[in-house]
Each structure stands twice: as C-alpha cells, then as structure tokens.
C-alpha cells in the first residue's frame, strides 16, 4: 500500500513526518524528496554517522603525501643546487604539498559525494520522480505517476 503526501510549507511537512515516525512507521519505508535542505529531517530520521569526511580526509592526506613525495623524489633524482637553496628545501615543498592537500581533499570529497549520494542516478535521469517544487513524502513502494 502506498501513501503519498505533498506539502507546501516546511512546517506542515515536518509535522507530518514527526507524526509518521511517532506512529511507528519504519523510517526505511519512508521516501522523501525536498525542494531544499531541511536539517531537522536528519534529526527526525536519526542521524547516521557521516562518512563523507573520511573521503575528504583521505584525499587531503594523500595529496599532502604525494606533494612532498613528488618534490623530494624529483630533487633527489637530479640533485642540483639551484639558487643557493638546499637540495631538499622544505618551505617551498610544503607549499606544493599544501596545494595538493586542498586539490585532492576537494576532489576526494566530491567523488565521495557522488558515491555516497548515488549520483549520477539512473532512476533520477529516467522520466519519473523529478526534483520537486514541494515537499513529498511517500510511504511504501514508490510508484511515481
């Protein structure tokens, strides 16, 4: 059995959602689509641990490590003193490491997001359940018109 609710306002939507959870509806069977972000929904449904930060952290550490590795490896492979600076000149190399930290951290977070949010989504690209203008709650199997 499928029930479908559509709301104009954020308050009515949250009220109905709270009521559904209080009635004992299984949160797994509730499908919600929202026109914009509503942080309260996550609280109502029970926040699960956030895994995206591990992607960001992993990317950032990889970037920093590879920046230092690249610079140090490349100067050691041809150890030539340039401009009176030491062969392993840490201050400039830290700079490269820092930039790659940010680059890989951001890309890590972005690709982690695509993975976790299941995008690109085949179901979303197909004709059917689109990004709505109003709040939509569907309880049960989703059959979109």
């Amino acid at each position, binding site marked *: 059995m499928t029930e479908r609710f559509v709301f104009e306002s954020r308050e009515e939507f949250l009220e109905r959602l709270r009521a559904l959870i209080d009635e004992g509806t299984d949160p797994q069977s509730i499908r919600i689509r929202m026109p914009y972000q509503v942080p309260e929904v996550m609280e109502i449904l029970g926040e699960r641990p956030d895994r995206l930060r591990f992607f960001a952290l992993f990317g950032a550490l990889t970037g920093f490590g590879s920046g230092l590795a690249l610079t140090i490896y490349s100067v050691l492979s041809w150890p030539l003193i340039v401009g009176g600076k030491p062969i392993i000149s840490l201050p*400039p190399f830290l700079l490269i490491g820092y930039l790659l930290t940010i680059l890989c951290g951001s890309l890590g977070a972005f690709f982690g997001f695509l993975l976790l949010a299941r995008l690109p989504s085949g179901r979303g690209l197909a004709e059917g359940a689109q990004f709505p203008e109003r709040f939509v709650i569907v309880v049960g199997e989703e059959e979109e018109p």
Partner: protein
Amino acid sequence: MRGEEQNITTATGRVEKDVLAALGRPGLRYLAGVGLCALLALMLFILWGGLALRGLGLSGKNHPVGWAMLITNFVFWVGIAHSGTLISAVLYLFRARFRTSFNRSAEAMTVFALLVASLFPLIHLGRVWVFYYLLPYPSERLIWPNFRSPLVWDVFAVTTYLIVSLVFFYVGMIPDLAIARRRLPGLRGRTYGLLSLGWQGTVLQWRHYGRLYLFLAAFATPLVASVHSIVSWDFAVSIVPGWHTTIFAPYFVAGAIFSGTAMVITLTIPMRRWLRLEPYITVDHFEAIAKILLFTSLIITYTYLVEHGLSLYGNSPFERDQYLYRALGDYRVLFAIMIVCNSLLPLTMFVRRLRRNLAWLFILGILVNIGMWLERFVIIVASLSHDYDPYAWGTYNFSLVEFGITVGSFGLFFLFFLLFVRLLPVLSMTEIKEHQ
C-alpha cells in the same frame, strides 16, 4: 513577463520562474553584446598568434622591464577571481545570508577570470608550444621542474584553484539544474537533466550534499588566501627593491578581494536590472557587499602606509629610492590615480547613503578596478625600471599589441559572463527558498 502564470502557485514557484526567465529567447541587444565581446576575444587570439609568430619584440617589454603589461593582466585577472570564492566560501562559513544574492555570479566570475588569467603566462612565454616544461611529467632524461621556483608554485596554485572553483561552482548548481530540467521543455530540459546527474532531492542526497558543500567551503577558504599569496611571491621572493617585502602576501590577498568585490558590484548591478531580479538582490545586500569593499580598501591603505613608511625607516637607500620613485618618478600620474581610486574614493562607503546608492556603487566598482589594475602595473613596472644599479635603469611603454590583448581579455571575460547569464541559473534558487 511572459505567460505561464498558471504555473505559479507557490512562492517557491515564483522564485523558479523569475530566475529561469533569463534562460528564455535572447534579445537583439544581448546578441549585439555577445557579438562585440566575441570580436574583442577574437582580436586577443589573433594578436597572440602574431606575438607567437613574430616574437615578443612586438610587445613593449625591454631591458630592464621584462615583466610588464601581460603580467599585470595575469595578476589583475587572478585577483578578480578571488572574490568569487570569498563570497561563496568564506561568507558561507560565517553564515552571512546576503551571499545568496551574489554567490552564483561570483563563482562564475571566478572560473571565467581564472580562464582568462591563465592565458597570460602562456602569452608571455612567447614560445607557448613548450608550456608543458612547467608541468611535472616523467621525461626520459629525468628533468623535473624546479619546485623551488615561484613560477612552478603558480602553476600548481592556479590549476588547483581553477579545478576547485569549478567543482564548487558545479556542485552549488546541481539542484538548480534539476529545477531547470523540470521547468524547461524538450532537448534543453533533457540537457539540464543530464547535467544535474538525475538529482531528485532525496534525504540521502541532501544530507551528503550539505556536508560536501561545507567541506568544499572549508578547503576553498585557505586556498583563496594562498593563491594570491603565491602570485605575490612571484615578485617578493626576488630581492628587487619594492618587491621583496614580507607584507606582500596579505597585501595581495586583500587587493585581490578588493578588486574582485568591485567587479561583482560592477557586474551584478546591470544584471539585476536587466533580468528584473530586484526582489532577490536587494539594496541591503549591496550595502553589505559595499562594506567588504570598504574593509579591504582600508587594508590596502594600511599596506601603502606601512610599505612607504618603512622604506624611510631603515637605512637602505635602495628601498627609500624605490618608493620615492614610485610616488614621484616616471609613473607618478598612475600612482596618484591609484591612490585616489583605491584609498580615497572608497572612503565614501563610510556614508550610509552612498553605500545604498547603486549608481555610485557601479561607478566606484569600475574606478576601483582601474585603480587596482594600475596598482599592479606600478608595482611591477616601477620596481623593474629603477632597481639597484643606475646604469640599468629604464622605462617602459606599452605597445599596441599588448594594449589590444588587454582589451581583448576584457572581451573574453564579458563574453563568458554573457553566455553564463543566458545558459545557467544566475541565482541559487534552492538557497533562496531555504531562506524565505
């Protein structure tokens, strides 16, 4: 306003309709603007071709002034890029609501300004076909770039900045692209649908989206400060008087945000009027952004005072002479214009009525950018013209080729921006709905 009134049943629907109205059929004046900008951009590429074929002798560069107008343009356009990230990321972290009015156009500006900026080192190279020497790639003779050189830092900084701001720009737009898909018919709707990756706005998607946006903002904020610091170090790590001074990094970052904010003002005031976005970009929002302009102008003024003051403080004749030369030497007129535009005129922003006067803000935005362009020119050219050895002094005058390339770069930038206005949603609709 066209028909489709029956679609507007809700306040949120009105936001969607107002913002997407810009994606309609272009008018004649718009097409004329695009044509003019495209011609200017074409001129840039033709002149660049000439410069590459005939050699850098076509530019006005000489001994001792080997870095001049092209490098000025590079610094200027990288600077313009900065306020995009500032408005999107820093104001997001500080939860300033007025960012919603500007963030999309500012982010677009960042991407376009970086694209334009990255042309200039390539033009300046002369033999552009060997640009890949700058990249670290494994060649069979194990020749790596010199990572101690600030020019290589620049490659890393600008590339990182371009990629991260593209990601940021795109991520911010995903939900809006899904709205465009829903509201536009036919092939256009399907294209926006593909670009939106099939975004549906489920709880799972929104939850990770919120976190992603926060992380990107957190990564972009230190990045924005470091990119222009690194640009400033192109100059400051050398020991040329007037370049080698420790305040250069914060000075350049503040200057970049200053000129970028001025450019945001210059672009959004006509855009708001032309696309009838007055209900969304209010005068209050302009007042808030004018305060950022004032704040950064004060930092710039502080730096001018410190730089020029300290040149008299120590006992280095070279420093003292360089700063006197800047203010009173061959480039004194440019220096005076720069002081008026960057330090004096922005003081009018202390007056509330002038902060809220859009005509004055628009003019001030343009004047500030003239001032900031001249500032970079004065820093670069005056220092090289007049360093340690009087035997090697000399002045610079630009050639028409360099001037044409500069004008063409503005054409290219405005071309990108005009296309953006017609092709992508210029305001973040989901954020406006969230704050309504």
